[in-house]
């Protein structure tokens, strides 16, 4: 294996252990890893930002597409927000960005997130299917309608008396959806922990000296978790 890969694996392993150590207690190793990550992520984004300007702005401009000069002017105008008097000029490029974003989204949002969903729900069959599928579809329709009712008809008369049953069904439906979502989140997190521990066990620990380093790393991390005043060494300075 190349030396560069070995160094990468060691660094990734150490940072994984240091980051996960927060699950047990705060410690300087975690803080170091966290700050390094923030710095590296900021640096990475900066490099990509410059790369984007070169690839999507500078390259077409120097190739003769003068329309891209407008993009640069708009980009420079963004920095006017730091000017005490002419800060309002920065709103011009922001409004262009917002306008393009809204325009792009709107052209298909109505179809994809409104009409298609309504059509799909309206076309759902309840009869002539298996018992379980029919029941599932019926439940889907009931919860969709009650939830729409819950959020649209918010005035007190529509939520009180016998009509409160509709809101109650909607609330139970939403609770079930949130529970499903939360369970999936737990699944996601467990998968991520598995991924990192699998990396430690099957990529890092198989390297020379890693098995010897593991107890040393763990002892240091555990020691760092002990509050400064309770550590036998070094003694805190008064």
């Amino acid at each position, binding site marked *: 294996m190349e030396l560069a890969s070995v160094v990468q694996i060691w660094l990734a392993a150490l940072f994984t252990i240091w980051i996960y150590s927060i699950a047990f207690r705060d410690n300087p190793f975690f803080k170091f890893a966290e700050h390094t990550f923030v710095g590296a992520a900021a640096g990475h984004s900066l490099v990509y930002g410059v790369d984007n300007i070169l690839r999507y702005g500078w390259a077409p401009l120097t190739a003769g597409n003068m329309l891209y000069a407008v993009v640069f002017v708009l980009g420079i105008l963004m920095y006017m927000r730091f000017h005490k008097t002419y800060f309002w000029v920065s709103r011009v490029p922001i409004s262009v960005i917002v306008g393009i974003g809204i325009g*792009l989204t709107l052209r298909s949002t109505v179809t994809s997130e409104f009409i*298609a969903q309504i059509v*799909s729900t309206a076309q759902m069959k309840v009869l002539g299917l298996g018992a379980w599928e029919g029941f599932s579809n019926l439940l889907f329709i009931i919860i969709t309608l009650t939830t729409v009712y819950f959020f649209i008809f918010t005035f007190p008369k529509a939520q009180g008396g016998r009509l409160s049953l509709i809101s109650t069904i909607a609330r139970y439906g939403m609770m079930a959806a949130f529970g499903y979502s939360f369970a999936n989140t737990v699944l996601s997190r467990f998968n991520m922990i*598995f*991924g990192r521990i*699998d990396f430690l*066990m099957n990529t890092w620990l198989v390297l020379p000296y890693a098995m010897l380093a593991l107890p040393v790393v763990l002892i240091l991390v555990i020691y760092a978790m002990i509050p400064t005043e309770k550590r036998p060494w070094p003694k805190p300075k008064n």
Partner: protein
Amino acid sequence: MTAKPKTIWDRLEDIPREILYGLLLVCIIVPMLFPIGFPVPISVEVKRWYDTIEALPAGSVVMVDFGYSGGGEPELAPFAVATYAQLFRKADIKVVTMSTSNEGPLLWEKAMTELNIARFGKEYGKDYIHIGYIAGVETAMAAVGKSISATTTTDYKGTPLSKYSIMQGVDSAEDFALLIVYTTGGDQSEGWVRQWYTSYKTPYLSCVLAMMVPTMLPYQKAGQIVSVVSGAQAGQIEILVKAPGRGVKSADVITVTHLLCIALVVVGNIAYFGKKFSGGKS
């Protein structure tokens, strides 16, 4: 005044997090050291995902958005690697990859190393390519859908796209037979529906984090996405592709950790009701 001694119910309700995380660690490491071999049943969604790729005719071009961030790598990479294996096993399928996340190109290289692409005899620039991270999320999707050459002129390494034979005759969404998206972002997974499926009717396969699945399911139900899967289902696609990897290995761990989760929920409820019935405030 002396503090009221803690009852067993109090202790059960307030288990220190160090113990909980310690138990979790044990539940992850033990099944990895001593695999139990829990079965990995194939879900309808993963089967549909597999069948969609199998049904691609020779000469098809597939667009892949390798758009996940480093945090999602442990969950999404095994699924992506298995799917690339399936695509590369098929004869005459071209794969154009882009990234809507700036970490995408780096993670793509890592996935290609894990895949050991040399064993498929595929050539970069002829059979597959990565056209780089394209900023702008939904703007990027719309721009690439309209014209790749007008959006970017180089691949992720900065080499002009015109030098690669794979890009000949491939420029807009209409040239692609299938769109496959791996993402950790809701904007990306939903944006592709708006910018590609709605505009060009490109069949779309979406692999997202498990926590994103509930928000994506309505699109699948409405027929806008062929199949929505979570990275946690990687073991299933690995079995179908006959390339067992991290996904299959994770099956035991995921099952055992969820059993721990259920056990802790039961303990919490026992403590709650125990405290209530023994006269303590819950």
